[in-house]
């Protein structure tokens, strides 16, 4: 009996550890929001200025490629009136391809930058978002891009 409990407990521990692995690495200068404070399949971090960085995974349905979803997202937000700062910047998150967009947004009397990024795998899409007043955004931009490259889709 003892010999059976050992491997099962080990497997359970491995599974538990796997489920605790973050979707993304914490951007430098950010504080991670505890996993039990955010919904499942989500990662959240916050900067001292209150800039929020969120990554979540969704089902890739209908199953499509990065190119398809990038075009769908860009077309939709542009139709809604979002002002794109670029055509989209491709990046690699492990073995999965990703695309990041930055949008210039008026918010109150301030100018904000809204980052939206997607990483697409066969079954899932990871969606990353971050937004802040532009001076704060540019302070953390490199850290955010580094974190995007660390996104792991489970």
């Amino acid at each position: 009996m003892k010999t059976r409990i050992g491997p099962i407990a080990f497997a359970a521990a491995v599974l538990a550890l796997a489920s605790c692995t973050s979707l993304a690495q914490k951007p430098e200068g950010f504080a991670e929001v505890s996993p039990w404070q955010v919904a499942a399949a989500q990662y959240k971090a916050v900067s001292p200025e209150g800039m929020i960085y969120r990554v979540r995974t969704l089902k890739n349905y209908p199953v499509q490629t990065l190119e398809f979803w990038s075009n769908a997202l860009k077309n939709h937000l542009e139709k809604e009136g979002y002002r794109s700062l670029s055509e989209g910047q491709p990046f690699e998150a492990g073995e999965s391809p990703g695309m990041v967009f930055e949008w210039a947004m008026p918010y109150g009397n301030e100018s904000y930058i809204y980052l939206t990024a997607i990483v697409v795998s066969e079954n899932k899409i990871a969606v990353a978002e971050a937004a802040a007043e532009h001076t704060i955004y540019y302070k953390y931009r490199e850290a955010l891009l580094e974190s995007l490259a660390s996104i792991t889709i489970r």
Partner: protein
Amino acid sequence: MKKVHVILSILCLLSIQAIAEENYLHHGIQATILVADVDRAIDSLARWADEAGGYLLYKSSEVVIFRFPHTKVGSLRGFLEDISETVVELSLQAQDLRESILGIQSGIQSREEILQQNLQYIDRTDVEGTLAIEKEVMQLLTEIEQLKGKLRKLTVDRAYALAQVNLRILGQSLPTDIPSSFGWINTIDFYKFVGEGF
């Protein structure tokens, strides 16, 4: 050899001047840039306009308006990129002023001809007629001055481009909420994201 260089330099300068003189386009530039230090950006823009041979028209913490020689239009984007975190928008409009200039010039010419004719009539008419002609002359002179003013403005427009550089994203209107056919795309919403907190 030196003489050849001097001659070539003079020829080059003359051709540039000729291009500038032949320009009939008025260039208008509308830009929105985001900068970390607004005051420094305003100073940089004013200095750039001045060094380019232009001049500042208006400045505030939100917008800087200036004129600068049309020959420098090409170098404005690079300068804006240098002083800003990002160039959100840069649009260039060009308007051909030939038709307007020709219209005004012919307007001035025809009024000057009528003016000359009226002045010739003054000597040959009575007091009542003189007063009527004088009134007509005054009217013509006013119109000619107005047209000359418009022509001067167009001449300035030909020589100088007009740039309006916004230092923040203008417009308070929220983007329209249009539903997407793809469910997850509907969850991408800047205002909702910013308002949610953590």
